[in-house]
Structures are given as C-alpha cells and as structure tokens.
C-alpha cells in the first residue's frame, strides 16, 4: 500500500446530547456509516456519500455533515480531485465510474439568459383569469393543409400523423427498470398519468406493473435491444430509439449483474445476474439510411400508429445530425445535453464529452428552420433542467417539450449524492435491494413528482402570461423573448439572441 488512502470526503458527527439512540441512522444507511458497539453509535465517515438519508430520518436533528477540509498543498492546476483521481487510478488501473450529471464547474448558460415581461404597451396576461394553453402535440406535422371546398363545407384531405398529446410540455426521461427500482418507476408512471404527460421506460423493457400506465409510456430501444418484442412495442404510446445519451455520448450502457435480479432479468429478457451491456453503436445503424430503415421498420411493425423518436447526445455537429434524423421519417428528435444525469458513466465522459443543451437546442432549431422543416418534426430537450425557468428558456430557444430526469428523482428523495452505480441507494431509487426499494411508496412518490410537474406548469403559465403569451406555440423558438446576459458574441450568435439592453 505504497500510495496509502485518499482522505475521506465527508465528516459525520452526532450531537450526543440530542441523540436518543433510536438507531434510525443505523437502519437507514445502506452504505454502512453507522454501527452499534456496546450500545453506542459508532461512525465510519469514510463510507458516507452525503446522501442525507440519515439526516432526513433523524427525529432529533442530531446528525451533522460537513465536507471535510482537505489539507493538500493548494494548487490551481492539481486540484484535490485531479490528485485523487490519479491516486485511485494508479492503484486500480481502471476507468473511474460516476453517477448523476456532469460535476465540472462549467458556466451554466441558462443562468445567463433572461426572460422578457410586458409593461404598459402590451398587457401581461393573468393566467388565473384568462385561458393559458400549454397543450403540446409531439409528432410529425404537415407542411401545409390539403383540403377541398364542397358546397361551402371544408373537406380535409390531409391525414395527421399520430402525435402524442401532452397537457404540459414536461415529460419524464428514460430511466430503465434496473437502473432504478420498480417502485421509483411506478411513482413516475403514476405521476405522468395524473398530469397528462408521458415518461420513458428506458432500455429495460416494461414491467407488468407499468402496464396500467402504458398509454403514458414511451418505450425505448437501445443498442442492446433489452426487453424488446412486438408486445413491448405495441404497449408504448410512442417508441424511442436511443442512439446517444448526454452523460455519455459515444458509448453504450452497462447495468451491472448484481442489479439484475429475477424481476429485472425477466423484464429485460436476459439471464439472471448477468451484466446487461448495450454496445456503443447500434449494430444495424451506421448511417442515416440505416436509421431511416429502423424507424420505418418500427412504424411498420406497429401499423404506423405510433410516433417514433430518435434520441441523440448533444455533440458538436448535433444540428446536421438532427436534420438527418428529421428526414429519416422520425417524428421527434430528442437531444440530451452534457449535463444530463446517468446511473453510471465513466467520469471522463460525463465531465468532458458533449455540449450544453442550451446551445444544442438553438443550433438544431435553427438548422431545421433554415431548411424549412422545423414545424414538421418535434424537438424534445433534456439534460440538466433544474426548474421552470430552464424549461421556459428551452422552449424559447426552440424545444417543443422537455424530458426531466434528475429533477423527478429529487422529487422522490434523491439528494444527488452521485453513487447510483453502486446499487445501494438508501432512498430506494437506484437500487434493486428489496429492503431499500420498499422505502418508496409509489402513491406518495407519484404525488410528489406530480406536484413538481404541476408547480413547473403553473410557473411556466405565469412566465408566459408575463410575456404576453397565452399559447405555448408562441413561446416556441421565440428568441425575441430572451436576452443574453454576459454571454460572448460567439455564443449569442449560436443562440441567435441579442444581448441585454438590445
């Protein structure tokens, strides 16, 4: 052990005067921070992930958690993290895994965009007294209407392609059964059913428990094709082909064997306890033509009754790729930005590959607009949306709707501790251990998630009303309603917005 160990990250302490030794901390910590010795609670701070489960459950508020001061020699280049990563890799020779979203301190573009509000000459609209329309249709739209006039009556010749009807432009992104627990997924499914929107199943197939909510589910096909059969395709309200993911563009997926319990193995159609590895590429997609073939095959298989989406990670030439996808018969392109969450990703990918969702939405929207096909295909944006302002800004930059992932998990208790890949999530979310999974009551959880969606929806209505808009169509791509604050000219040009004061 020539390298020794790296210092612990967090320091847990208990106010012994307050503690009543109820042992809830011991019971709740799945990482083994607490144990009992001689009627005393002993703390092993090294095991702590800052998941906050113990703190939330302590009836006496007796537990304190601090990031532990680091006593390395300070250095602007060789940060603590850089040094510790080297030490850990020197020891293991392995790829460093990470969970949740990008943890590098990049500037957040959303926070440098400001929204508009009406004053005097154009009255703002009060959503409590006037109609406010957030209804969103996701799917192909015709370029123009074809109709004939017959005896003064209009005969519509255009047949609309199938669209998903959303009561609010917020959907829940794809998190598979396996990556998250059944109770977590069930909470999300119940929440979207309550709020008139949709959730993604992820690439893990669809568990029977989700069947009652299948009309609100978008089934996913990733390169591993786990759980995919005709029954699965027919259950979904829409089908999504996952090519890339924001947290790890260019690589596949990996569900460790220890998370593949009997139920997961059955749902994914893979052997019990086996690693579920999605390859980096789809082995039948090496071009837009190949993608188009898969899109049309899926439509053919489901009788052309379901929209088919294609999800890609936001990368440098995302606009050109999205334009190709739009021409592949796909009904929507999903763009996942590089602050998107994940159950497990190599840290080097999560923190360094891809581009921010704000720039990706604007670039894709502009490219499709330049080609005159923007309204014919929908854009769904995801990857690091934290609140209703991010949502409103995404739509103003050009998205039709968004997927939220991490935010919906936080509504279920997640504290973004970033240890999802270990399968020990004390909140019962990113785990398959029965004793942890049962910590989520899906009825309660669904109400929390539904509340989050309702809250954002109300705030979006207010933001729209303030901008004098009573229809979501008029916010979509409305760059006039945005200004850039302390953004450089290059980025303003990509976003196609003006500076504050202009």
């Amino acid at each position, binding site marked *: 052990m020539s390298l020794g160990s790296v210092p612990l990250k967090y320091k847990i302490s208990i106010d012994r005067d307050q503690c009543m030794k109820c042992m809830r901390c011991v019971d709740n910590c799945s990482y083994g921070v607490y144990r009992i010795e001689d009627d005393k609670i002993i703390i092993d701070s090294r095991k702590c992930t800052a998941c906050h489960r113990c703190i939330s459950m302590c009836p006496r508020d007796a537990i304190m958690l601090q990031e532990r001061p680091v006593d390395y020699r300070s250095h602007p280049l060789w940060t603590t993290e850089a040094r510790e990563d080297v030490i850990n890799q020197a020891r293991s020779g392995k790829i460093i895994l990470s969970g949740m979203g990008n943890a590098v301190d990049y500037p957040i573009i959303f926070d440098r965009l400001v929204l508009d509000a*009406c004053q*005097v*000459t*154009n*009255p703002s*609209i009060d959503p409590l007294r*006037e*109609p406010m*329309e957030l*209804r969103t*249709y996701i799917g192909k*739209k*015709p*370029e*123009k*209407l074809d*109709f004939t*006039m017959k005896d003064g009556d*209009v005969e*519509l010749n*255009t047949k*609309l392609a199938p*669209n998903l009807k959303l009561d609010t432009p917020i959907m829940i992104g794809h998190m598979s059964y396996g990556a998250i627990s059944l109770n977590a997924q069930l909470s999300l499914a119940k929440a979207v059913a309550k709020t008139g929107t949709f959730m993604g199943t992820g690439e893990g197939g669809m568990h029977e428990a989700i069947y009652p909510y299948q009309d609100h589910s978008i089934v996913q096909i990733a390169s591993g094709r786990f759980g995919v059969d005709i029954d699965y395709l027919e259950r979904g309200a829409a089908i999504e082909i996952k090519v890339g993911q924001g947290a790890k563009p260019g690589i596949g997926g990996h569900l460790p064997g220890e998370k593949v319990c009997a139920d997961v193995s059955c749902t994914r159609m893979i052997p019990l306890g086996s690693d579920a590895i999605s390859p980096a590429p789809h082995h039948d997609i090496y071009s837009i033509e190949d993608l188009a073939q898969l899109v049309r095959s899926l439509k053919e298989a489901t009788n052309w009754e379901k929209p088919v989406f294609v999800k890609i990670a936001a990368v440098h030439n995302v606009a050109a790729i999205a334009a190709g996808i739009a021409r592949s018969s796909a009904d929507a392109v999903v763009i996942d930005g590089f602050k998107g969450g994940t159950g497990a990703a190599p840290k080097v990918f999560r923190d360094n590959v891809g581009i921010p969702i704000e720039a990706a939405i604007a670039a894709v929207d502009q490219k499709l*607009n*330049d*080609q*005159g096909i*923007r*309204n014919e295909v929908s854009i769904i944006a995801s990857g690091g949306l934290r609140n209703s302002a991010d949502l409103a800004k995404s739509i*103003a930059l050009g998205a039709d709707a968004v997927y939220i992932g991490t935010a919906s998990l936080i509504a279920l208790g997640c504290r973004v501790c970033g240890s999802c890949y270990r399968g020990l999530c004390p909140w019962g979310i990113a785990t398959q251990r029965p004793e942890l999974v049962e910590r989520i009551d899906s009825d309660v959880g669904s109400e929390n998630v539904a509340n989050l969606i309702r809250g954002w929806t109300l705030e979006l209505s207010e933001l729209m009303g303030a*901008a*004098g*808009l*009573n*229809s979501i*169509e*008029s*916010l*979509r*791509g*409305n*760059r*006039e*309603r945005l200004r850039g604050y302390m953004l450089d000219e290059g980025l303003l040009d990509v976003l196609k917005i003006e500076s504050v004061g202009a």
Partner: protein
Amino acid sequence: MCGIIGVIDRTMARMDGSSIKKALSLMDERGSGEGAGYVAYGIYPDYSDCYAIHVFFDNLLEPKTNVDRILQKWGRIVYQEEIPTYEQPNLKREHIPWRYFFKPYTDLMVGTTNPDDDNVKRLVMTINSTVEGALVFSSGINLGVFKASGWPEDVANFYRIEDYKGYIWLAHNRYPTNTSGWWGGAHPFNLLDWSVVHNGEITSYGTNRRYVESHGYQCTMSTDTEVVAYLFDLIGRRHGLPSDMVVEALAPPFWDEIDEMPEKQEEFMRALRLTYGPALMNGPFAIVIATKDGIVGFTDRIKLRPLVVGENDSKLYISSEEAAIRIMDPDVERIYMPRAGEPVIGRVTQ
C-alpha cells in the same frame, strides 16, 4: 395606441382619399407624429397589368442604379417616376419616394403556381435585404402605399392623398413603442396584394418571424407588423387558404373550444393549429388586412385592442374608433364590435 381605419366599397366604386384623411386625423390622440400612412386599391387603372413598386430611396445614385439593375434583370420597367410630393412644414423629407410599373418575365420563375407573384416577392426580399439606401414598401398590382414619419394630415398633404381614387382604403396613425419612428416602420405594410395596418404589439413576433423566414421571407423593417403581411402571403396566397381560414390559423379558437366542436370541425381545427402553430399570433392586436378582393379585420384571441365595424350600403368600415367611422360617413348603420378573434370580412361583389 395607434389608430387604424379601413373601408371597402364592395361595388368597387372608387372613393378619393379626402375622407379617410379626415378620419385618421381625428385619431391623432392615438399617434405621436412619428408615422402615418395610407394604402388605396384601384388607383393605377392605366397600369392595371403592372406591379406598382414603390421604393424609398436615400438618393438617386447608387441605390437606384442597383434597383434598376435588379428589376431589369427579372422583368421590364414599363414606366417609372418620382412619386409626386408636396413640401410640408412639419414633415422632414428623409427619403425620395419613387414608383416603378413593372412586368416580371414569367418564364424566369419555374416550378411555382404563381410565377409572377413569386418573382416579385423574391425581388422585394432581395432589394430590401441587399440594397443599401433602398426600401420597397409597396409592390401590388393597381394599388399603392403612401407613408412617412409625420402626423396623418401632414403625410396626406405630402402625397396629396385626395388626388388618388380607390375602392379600398386603409390608413394608420402610429404610436411607436417598440422601435423608432422611421419611414419604413410606418404602416401600412405591404407585400404584393396584401396590405396590413395594425394596432398593438405582437408578442409572438420571434416565432412568427422565424416561421416566415424559413419559407423565404426576410424581415427587414424592424417592426413586428411586417410579419403579418408575410404570414398572409405564405398561408393565404401560397398555401391557398381563404382569408377567414387564415384568420383562424393566426388567431385560432382555444383548445377547450376546439374540443367541444362537432367531430369533423374539431378534426379540421386541430389539423389547422398543428400545421400553423408557428403562425399563431399572440399579444394585443387589432388588424385590418386588405387584398384586391376585399378586407379582413380581426383582433387577438382575448381582444386586448378595440375594433369597431360599421356598414352603409355597399361600404364596410373597420376602425379603432366609432367616431372615425362616423366622421367619414355620418349615415353609417349597423355599428358593432366583433368578438375576439372573429374575422370581419368585406368582399367585392363582381
């Protein structure tokens, strides 16, 4: 603010511009002296087979040479002259208004159902976006826009509006709140046969603008109203929707109302909204649009701007104020206010 008024004589009997000048001046409280304008249909019977292209030139040297060159490349200039103007003490002459009577070479534009119109539309966009010091502000057949920065009576006297006779007139008194008052920003806005006067602000402008720009239009006048003329040209002329249907696309019923419609109508309205979502207009507005066959007036979906309609025999009036209609026609009958989003249509009867 802003005052708008429009009138059509459905029998196509031509009226001179004196009474609409009076009506517009009555609404001076709605303006700030920074923009006023008029458009009249049927004023150029001698050139009724030519496009009347009105241009503001900064000077008659380089800008005009460039415009001449572009026009001559794509068609024939049948006649051209400076638009007669008469100095007004309160109006600063900032541009030289010029008019061309122009016939495009149809065979240069293929693959379109309206080659002449598409040709002229492209010319207008090209000149306005590439020729510095020139701005085409009127391009229809047998019609003309006359506008400037000034009060309604000064602008009318500048062009001597009463000398023109038309069967449709629109007029606008501007109170600019978003952009500066300049000649190009005064209303009416025109493209081909479409002319628009507008009271209000279009909060969906960014979305509408991107939509028309993706179909080959270029917004160059720094004012939200311009986009309305292009929306009507795109959806009305190129996509072939009748005017009432264009209004339904631009100011559609709310989803709750659509949901309650009979099945066939519901299907149509849903298709219309899905297809033309980016054309939906938001914000406070009252708009009157003219084309050679008639006029259409409508407001935003929650009616944040006033609009009054009056009729007298073959004449239909649409205005911001009843008084403006009454001063034009003291015998006017059937004064009413249309509901939010409801199109008021006056068509010529031939």
